[in-house]
């Protein structure tokens, strides 16, 4: 392809956007709508994943110390606990502190008035790095000398892991379905745009234009429309996300929900929106024009 032709073909590609204004507008609108839907769901799924992960971190193991050990010996076990692989942190709770918590929990119930600190054990609250390894860490804790018994809420940890796994699978499935639906809608919109120009394509074929010469302006046009759609969708997504997070934060006084700031996912979002816009534009126009080339 000659260089002067390339200039013409690029110019034609850009000109086509304005020459077929309505179809260009429709293609951009569909791209924006699809990308915003896919983008919103992806970012929502990402936030939910982080929230579940955060909740999962609250699962802990209670380690009860042998009553035969002195206070100093009980406190020294903390070092051994912290040396275990999966332990994020451990907090020592003396039997006196445990009694205070017990009384507070039972709100001065007379049935427990005779309970003494000596009846209780020193204990550690152990927070894990990875709750999927809770059972394994629990076994290691039980092996430590001076540990009388442990109390680990496996069911809760497993529950969080299951929720997270289900969330991952559902997110991937929904995003995949949304992407396929988006591609179909965009591809049909591009086909409509091509149909609008079938006479033009037929004339080009009739006067002896090569397939490459016919295709390139459409691909340039598709790429440009895809990128315009991606930029608009990205801006819209950013604004909508920021505004939604602000609104939720205002009403969520208990801070039940935590959302990552958009800036934290800026680079992956730019990459995903850019790639999706480019893919949809180029592939959409390339495949749609094939139908009209067989003249």
């Amino acid at each position, binding site marked *: 392809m*000659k260089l*002067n*032709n390339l200039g*013409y073909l690029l110019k*034609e590609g850009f000109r086509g956007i304005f*020459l077929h204004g309505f179809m260009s507008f429709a293609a951009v609108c569909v791209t924006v709508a699809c990308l915003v839907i896919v983008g919103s769901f992806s970012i929502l799924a990402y936030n939910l994943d982080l929230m579940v992960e955060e909740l999962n971190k609250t699962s802990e193991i209670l380690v009860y110390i042998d009553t035969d050990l002195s206070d100093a010996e009980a406190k020294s076990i903390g070092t051994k606990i912290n040396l275990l692989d999966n332990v994020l942190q451990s907090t020592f709770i003396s039997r006196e502190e445990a009694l205070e918590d017990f009384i507070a929990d039972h709100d001065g119930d007379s049935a427990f008035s005779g309970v003494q600190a000596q009846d209780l054990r020193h204990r550690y609250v152990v927070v894990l790095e990875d709750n999927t390894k809770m059972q394994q860490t629990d076994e290691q804790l039980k092996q430590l000398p001076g540990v009388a018994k442990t109390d680990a809420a496996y069911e809760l940890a497993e529950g969080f892991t299951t929720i997270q796994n289900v969330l991952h699978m559902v997110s991937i499935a929904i995003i995949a379905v949304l992407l396929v639906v988006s591609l179909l809608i965009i591809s049909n919109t591009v086909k409509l745009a091509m149909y609008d120009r079938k*006479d*033009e394509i*037929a*004339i*080009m*074929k*009739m*006067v*002896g*234009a*090569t*397939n490459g*010469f*016919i295709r390139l302006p459409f691909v340039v046009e598709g790429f440009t429309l895809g990128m315009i759609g991606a930029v608009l969708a990205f801006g819209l997504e950013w604004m909508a996300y920021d505004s939604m997070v602000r609104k939720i934060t205002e009403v969520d006084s208990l801070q039940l929900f935590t959302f990552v700031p958009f800036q934290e996912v800026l680079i992956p979002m730019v990459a995903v929106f850019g790639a999706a816009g480019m893919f949809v534009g180029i592939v959409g126009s390339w495949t749609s024009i094939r139908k009209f080339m067989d*003249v």
Partner: protein
Amino acid sequence: MIQFIDVVKSYEQGNNALNGVTMQIEDGEFCFLVGPSGSGKSTIIKLITGELKPTSGAVHVNGYSLERIRRREIPYLRRTVGVVFQDFRLIDKMTVYENVAFAMRVVGAKEKEIKERVPYVLELVGLEGKMSRHPNEMSGGEQQRLAIARALVNNPSTIIADEPTGNLDPERSFEIMALLQEINNLGTTVLVVTHAQNLVELFGKRVIAIDEGLVVRDGTEEENDDEAE
């Protein structure tokens, strides 16, 4: 040169459009192709422009053998054959100048060549004063002139006109035929597919008559009449 040697064209449905057509049109000739609807005229045009391939036999057009032409060679074959249709097939969004320039641009012509060639061709067809008009602002005759200008602009060695006067009144039809003859006088081969018997008689050129996929007559009207007597 256009040459058909015992050409058969069958469609997938099983019916034969051509049943062994043999004919030859020399460079620089003016020729009419006539025949009733469904006789095979359109198939002949599609074979010449590379839209179809023959089922058997040989088709040679301006140095290309259509029975074994490669897909990527078809655009280059089409640059040697300008086609004019009954329904003009112009782009209404473009001006007269742009419609013709478009045909040059899409085959990769330089802007300088386009600026020189388009006004020359528009003058040849008598549209020099209407370059900035749009096709829908013009009469049928003018639109057909524009279609001829577009077919001519890439300097093809052959012009095929498929019912070029089908949408025109007798006066405009005569003008279009006269224009095609003028183009032929400049050295371009012209093949006109028509139902207009009066024009065929008036111009007294070679006539190839097709019926049921076969050439049933070939010669000038006078020769054919003599043969009939």
